[in-house]
């Protein structure tokens, strides 16, 4: 039987298939559908310092093989997470990784510090696609210096595996990747959603209450794959790849491009059992191609 385990920055995953923040709730909603113990890990919904109501309705627009969302970090804050949610999920038989968001460097640091105390959370993923309210609302993840700063500040207080998730809405993803690597990130997650928009021509209005929103799904896969490939060549820390992964073929593409693990996002909405199907599909591919260790796929794209 092929070996699907991967070690990422010292953390051992039983397989490279994890689920993306904001698309998997806190995991428990999926227990009717799958055995969570078959997943490499679960990235839970963004946690911020305080309670956030998120954006107004409507928050969703369907697009051509994709969707736009403007959920906007709705969550009950880090206190509530530690008190109410953590106890409920901490004994899931898989890695639970918390997606940390904020509007200021201080907020990121505060949340990271609190999550650092939770024994069964082995890693956090900084979501730096959020707007920096102190700096005119430019997203942390679009300016290298800002990305380095927030990573470095969190690094000071966070002792476990620090992952940083990049925004694809940039001219040079490698500059951002280098910036967070410089800031002390152990792992880079690629990609968050592309900024998009949808219009209802009958009402002549934007579909989303926020006018623009984040594009996810198969539509963005080519862009995500390209970014994973670019960063893999430019930076020497592990990458977790995502963006439009719907099946094992997609997942393997990301690994060949350089991802050490992958996340399944929007696909969970269409088939809540898809993540374990991807685990099975990767295994079948490895058997067919006589690949013993899944780590042999990482960055194994032949370009000569």
């Amino acid at each position, binding site marked *: 039987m092929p070996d699907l385990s991967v070690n990422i920055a010292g953390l051992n995953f039983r397989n490279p298939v994890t689920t993306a923040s904001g*698309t998997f709730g806190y995991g428990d909603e999926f227990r*009717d559908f799958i055995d969570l113990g078959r997943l490499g890990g679960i990235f839970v919904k963004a946690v911020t310092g305080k309670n956030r109501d998120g954006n107004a309705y409507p*928050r969703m627009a369907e697009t051509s093989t994709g969707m736009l*969302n403007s959920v906007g970090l*709705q969550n009950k804050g880090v206190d509530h997470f530690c008190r109410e949610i953590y106890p409920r999920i901490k004994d899931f038989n898989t890695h639970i990784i918390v997606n940390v968001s904020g509007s200021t460097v201080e907020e990121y640091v505060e949340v990271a510090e609190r999550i650092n105390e939770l024994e069964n959370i082995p890693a956090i993923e900084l979501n730096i696609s959020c707007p920096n309210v102190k700096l005119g609302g430019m997203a942390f993840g679009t300016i290298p210096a800002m990305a380095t700063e927030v990573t470095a500040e969190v690094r000071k207080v966070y002792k476990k595996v620090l992952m940083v998730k990049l925004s694809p809405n940039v001219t040079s993803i490698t500059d951002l990747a280098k910036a967070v690597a410089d800031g002390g990130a152990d792992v880079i997650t690629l990609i968050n959603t592309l900024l998009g928009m949808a219009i209802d021509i009958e009402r002549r209005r934007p579909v989303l209450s926020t006018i623009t929103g984040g594009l996810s799904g198969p539509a963005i896969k080519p862009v995500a794959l390209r970014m994973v490939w670019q960063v893999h060549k430019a930076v020497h820390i592990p990458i977790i790849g995502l963006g439009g992964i719907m099946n094992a073929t997609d997942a393997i593409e990301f690994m060949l491009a350089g991802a050490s693990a992958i996340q399944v996002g929007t696909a969970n*909405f*269409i088939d*809540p059992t898809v993540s374990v199907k991807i685990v099975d599909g990767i295994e079948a591919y490895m058997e067919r191609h006589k690949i013993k260790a899944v780590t042999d796929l990482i960055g194994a794209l032949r370009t000569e």
Partner: protein
Amino acid sequence: MELKKHVQDLLVIEVTRLNKRHFLLDLRAPEKFPLILPGQFVQVLVQGSASTFLRRPFSIHSVDYSRNTLRLLVQIKGEGTRHLAELKTGDHLNLIYPLGNSFSLPFTKDVLLVGGGCGVAPLLFLAQFLNQNNIRPTILLGFRTKEEVSEIETYSRFGNVHVITDDGTEGEKGLVIDHSMFQRERLDFKKIYCCGPDAMMKAVAKIARMHRIECEVSLENTMACGFGVCLCCITPTDKGNERVCMEGPVFNINRLTW
């Protein structure tokens, strides 16, 4: 009582066209149904088009546990529902179900169900359910026009049916709230269940409030997942933003900001 959600291929037993815009879809599950409650819905995977990427939500119109079938009432709106209308007996359809909360049992026998358009869908199942609990509701159904009035006989088995059409071609004329039963000074109902377009539900809620009648509505919303994980389908309630697919689709109007 199992309340587990399923992802399952159901067999298309029959597609019955009611009129130009509406049809019934009878589906059989491969194994025994879990418990399904009135007001719950399903998420249907529409295959065969690039513009139906996400699943489509439909209320459960009725359930037959003995035959292990459920029925959907679908109004043709866009690409997805057009595809469903073309399904044939013997095809399969992938469903996630049962989803959402449900209408609550009333503490009274004076019950009114109000439905408009395809919003009538969950009311049939509710009427069935009320009957099983020895309640025979009054049922007020609004349609656009005579051509679209349908299933009256079915509803009549479970309650006392009144019809109103926008153009007056059958029953009374006007919107549901224009119906004569609402024009009296005192209404005889202690509980109203309502489902239909937003504007209609808001109008009915206003009447219910005026007469201090308890009222539950089943909300629509744009859904990506349907089982509580994407947070796309929220509605503001007394507890903040709640998920229509989990805490709803049925809400007591007192909990809404209407």
